[in-house]
């Protein structure tokens, strides 16, 4: 016997599948957007951390006093990135000649604090 059109059950299954896919798509789309935005922000933070490290490295060794300090915040794409710098001595080494630098970039997104840190030890030798 020939069939004409879909049965009610087939239609229901088809619509369910379609609905499922549409729901997945609707969920994935913003998630992908969030992921891409998160990556962009981390890249931004990395760039800030690296440029801050380079700036610090460019200073004379004597100017890099031990301790923590906060550098002026930077705003990129509407987000504010705070920069904290710590210059520290290393265990067993003379801080006149070898020091550690740590740059922390902190920002907030979707109500949650985000942070990226970069650490570098620098020596007076060969600078």
């Amino acid at each position, binding site marked *: 016997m020939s069939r004409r059109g879909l049965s009610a059950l087939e239609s229901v299954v088809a619509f369910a599948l379609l609905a499922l896919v549409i729901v997945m798509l609707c969920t994935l789309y913003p998630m992908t957007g969030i992921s891409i935005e998160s990556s962009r922000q981390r890249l931004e933070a990395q760039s800030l951390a690296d440029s801050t490290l380079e700036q610090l490295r460019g200073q004379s060794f004597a100017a890099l006093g031990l301790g923590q300090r906060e550098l002026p915040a930077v705003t990129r794409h509407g987000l504010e990135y705070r920069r904290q710098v710590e210059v520290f001595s290393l265990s067993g080494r003379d801080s006149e000649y070898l020091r550690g630098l740590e740059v922390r970039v902190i920002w907030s997104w979707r109500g949650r604090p985000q942070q990226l840190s*970069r650490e570098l*030890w*620098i020596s007076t030798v*060969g600078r």
Partner: protein
Amino acid sequence: MLVAVLVTLSFALAGVGVSNLSFTTRLESLEQGRALSESVVALASDHLRTDVTFGTPANRGGVLEMRPRIGPGRALLTFDPLLAARHSIPCSTNNLAGDVAVPGWGRSVPPASSHLIGCATVGGVTRNVEILMQMPAFPYAVAAGGSLRSNGDLLVGSVPAGTDPTTLDLRFEEELGPGNLLSNAPGSSSLVLGPNSRVTGDLRAGGEVLVDPRGSRVGGQVKQNLAPVSLPRLDVRSYDPVAQGRSQVRHLAMDELSDPALIGFVRRQGDLRIRDGLALDNGVLFVDGDLRIDGGAHGVGAIFVTGDTVLHGGSSLASDNQVALVSGGDVRIVGGPNSHFQGMLYSDRDFRATRVMVLGSLVARGSVVLNGVTLIQAPQATALDLVPGQMSELALPGGTRIPVRFDNPTFTVQNPLTLESQSGLTHEQAISRVMLLVEQVAGAAAVPTRDEVDAALRALAQAPPLAPIDPVQLDLSRFLPFEQRMKVTLWRQQQP
């Protein structure tokens, strides 16, 4: 059909998100790896600062490790080939004390260099940072703590290590290497060069630099108003052989010598004047007073003067001349046509030179004034590692002692009063010379017989060689802080 399209779109979106995240993470790991590798290299260079033997076969130093306080990853560096193989990392090489190039990881490591390779692993990404540091010889042809002034006709350049000075042809100035001038004096006339001043290297000054453009040329950079550079500070009195407890120090009673040839340690308490030139045969002259030399100084040796030094005339260039003159007071060199000084010149105070060619380096903690001077920096002249010569004393009947050295097969005989030496004497000539000297020193009654002198000389020739004595070492570079001496000649990062 619609479902298929939508599913594909979903996967594409998910793929974009994942790959973006993966790219960001990898980039972060790479940058973090670079920072960690650089850090462990900095740690290794600091170890080298405190101990230049760190990483040599006698002192491998294990594995240096750097872990960040926050976050993943670590960086390693080692000079030990076995440990490098165990950790699958490149092996660093310390050849700072080497005279020849040695094989390193992927490259040859030149002498006086250190090859450091930090290897970091972060999040599955490996990053190497490789640097080659060199410790060059003292970098300045002339370095002055005060002002530096040339009144004209100045030529400053350099020649590579090992250059035979007798082959030096200054007609081809363009073949000279860079020779640098330094003045630490602040102010408006820190470094002043008069007409016809040719400097192949840099001019660095704590104040302003003035160059008379008439016939003048500066091959390097002119750096003005810079922070002072640490200059070597030599304590002349620390080289006093008596204070050092040296044996075999000849004390000079006379305040005037003519054409002496000094061997070993000679000390003069008070002023000294030397006529007809000073010859140093691995000799070390210490003068606790002022020194004046007419006729220049040549040979191999060192002169330490607590007071002022005046050097009139100069010697001709010779491949084996190397003299270090260290003066606690002013130094004045007055040359003439074909006057040369080969070696290092150091003054705790002011320095003044006229019409002389210096093949070596000049350091004055005070001001420097040059008139018609040629300064050619030679790396070998910035360091002196001198094993002072030794003379045996010929024990003769009657107690008279005559300094004699057996140079196989000839003899060198020295006058104990005037320190005048005659070398290259045959056995017979040495006997005659000794007898003559005994007569001069102790009178005719004390002269031994020919047979007695002959026997004493034979005994001396057959005696075992004298025990070696500690060398006298002078290295201008050694007095500069390690971090000022090291130069990074290569910096490379790579991802294996």
